[in-house]
């Protein structure tokens, strides 16, 4: 008999929510203080990169300080977090914006927006002031030079279209191989198949962790790793796309496996079929359609990524883009951009139509 284990994490989390909220609010308040200090008095530690820095011990102090304030406000009963989250369900006559939770959320969103605006150096004035610098760029984009579309560019050892074919193949290989590898992984990462013995559960958590980590690193970063490993070129790019695709597909696929219906599986089981036969006839037909849709979706993404993966040495049509850009040859940059846009657009359209048919 299997006893389900009830995790205490959700309940713990419920209790921690007001504290986290308070901490966030105090964090924002202290950010304002630091920001003002930076702007008007304490400019000693401002570096070229950002407007907001503190001496090394400053961040640790801030984090601890805000935590302390948050804990204190709960102790003294002035916690906004607590007030917002544990409000009684008032009769619906009170508009959401007036409730504690409403006000707090609005405050947080507005504050985040303001902090974001400052942190990311948004400066609309620069857009207007530096507009003239972009004239060369726009001129190039609107008068594209397709000289090396079919003719080989000696410096690049290839033509744009040739490189385009390579790019598409890179994406194809990555999607196909990644897809094949992801199929078994998807099963290993599905809760409903991996329940039961200790052994299976460990495998499940390991698999899940594996694909979450690999998925969190974008293909471009993987390409850097593979460029070091295999040298620059489409092989590096392909492997990078492959490994990311495998992890992403495995996750999507495992979600599908978790959602399969018990019924058909019971039915096949009841006829005396073996384990593998049950999977093949009861489970697999339920997931294949969505899986194919995911493959198409992934192919689309991989093609997009493959167009720029040359940035870090991954080969493909991006080579031309970055090379001409470095030469400030905007007319040819325009040509490459148009080719990329057209190809990606066509593929996106095909992918969309094909996926419509599956569902």
């Amino acid at each position: 008999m299997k006893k389900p284990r009830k995790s205490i994490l959700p309940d713990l989390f419920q209790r921690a929510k007001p504290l986290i909220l308070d901490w966030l609010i105090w964090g924002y308040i202290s950010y304002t203080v630091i920001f003002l200090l930076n702007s008007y008095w304490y400019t000693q530690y401002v570096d070229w990169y950002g407007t907001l820095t503190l001496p090394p011990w400053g961040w640790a102090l801030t984090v601890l300080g805000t935590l302390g304030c948050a804990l204190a406000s709960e102790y003294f009963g002035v916690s906004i977090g607590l007030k917002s989250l544990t409000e009684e369900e008032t009769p619906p006559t009170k508009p959401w914006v007036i409730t504690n939770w409403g006000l707090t959320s609005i405050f947080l969103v507005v504050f985040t927006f303001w902090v974001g605006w400052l942190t990311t150096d948004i400066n609309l004035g620069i857009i207007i002031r530096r507009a003239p610098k972009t004239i060369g760029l726009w001129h190039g984009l609107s008068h594209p030079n397709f000289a090396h579309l079919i003719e080989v560019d000696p410096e690049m050892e290839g033509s744009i279209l040739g490189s385009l074919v390579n790019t598409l193949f890179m994406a194809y290989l990555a999607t196909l191989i990644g897809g094949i590898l992801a199929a078994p992984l998807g099963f290993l990462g599905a809760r409903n198949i991996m329940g039961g013995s200790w052994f299976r559960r460990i495998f499940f958590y390991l698999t899940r962790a594996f694909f979450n980590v690999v998925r969190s690193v974008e293909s471009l970063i993987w390409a850097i790793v593979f460029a070091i490993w295999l040298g620059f070129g489409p092989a590096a790019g392909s492997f990078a796309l492959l490994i990311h695709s495998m992890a992403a597909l495995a996750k999507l696929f495992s979600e599908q496996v978790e959602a399969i219906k018990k019924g058909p599986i019971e039915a096949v089981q009841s006829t005396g079929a073996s384990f593998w036969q049950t999977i093949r006839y009861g489970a697999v037909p339920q997931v294949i359609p969505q899986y194919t849709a995911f493959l198409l979706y992934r192919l689309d993404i991989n093609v997009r990524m493959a167009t720029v993966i040359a940035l870090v040495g991954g080969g493909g049509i991006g080579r031309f883009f970055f090379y001409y850009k470095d030469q400030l040859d905007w007319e040819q940059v325009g040509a490459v951009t148009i080719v990329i846009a057209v190809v990606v657009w066509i593929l996106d359209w095909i992918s969309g139509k094909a996926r419509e048919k599956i569902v």
Partner: protein
Amino acid sequence: MSDGEEIRVRSSWYFWRNLLVVLFFIGLFVVALNRINLDLTKLITNFPSTLKLWGAFAKPDWSVLGEGAELLVKTLYMAFMATALALPFAIVLSFLGAKNLMNSPAAQVVYTAVRGIASVIRSIQPIIWAIIFIVWVRTGPFPGVLALWVHSVADMTKLFSERVESIDPGPLEAIEATGAGKLLVLVYAVIPQIINPYLSFTLYRLDINVRMATIIGIVGGGGIGMRLYSYINKWNFPKAVVMTMLIVAMVWGIDYLSSRLRERIETGGGERSEQYTI
């Protein structure tokens, strides 16, 4: 044809046709492999050149943790700002780009223009947009935000307008029948049906923007990507590894939050799948 023969022919056809499809994909695979030359043996023979990299995982340089954390926050803000700024534009454009709302001849033109331009903009990766904006406003997080913003508006417009096109026409008809103007129809028939999906798509887009923001620094778009890339170029792997770990933590975290929130929105409660063993 007798029934028996019918079965034989049909089963035969299905088998051979499926085989043909498989052969097609294999053929494409072979041609691609030919051109790309995925040398698995090279993975093994060249392995030594990556030892420095893997070695750095054993001894990461934690001194850059503070700097990395600050950049991480900045990257997160970049993604947030891009999404938040894109949202209002995408919402408005989504109505202009929805077939079922734009039915007069003049509106059809607007519809085609909106969807067409959005499609083209979407086809161009944020990295490429980032380069354009870097030329415009110089390196830093700002061009990154702009690049993500442009791409987000286009992508969200597409997602949103597709959703509007698949709403239930019932309430639309009902309110139009009362003689209400276009705007009222929008507010009372369309909006209630799309609030949840739009929220869900926004979270989805935020997730994507966070991922993009981590790499947009490589071209100069600011954020943690920039620092990561500079460390790698200097072959300073211990520091690069710390940056990577921070990226993994953030992306995983946001991905998880985004998925859970979207699950809650879609099911309003949610149920876990049954557990059973085969």
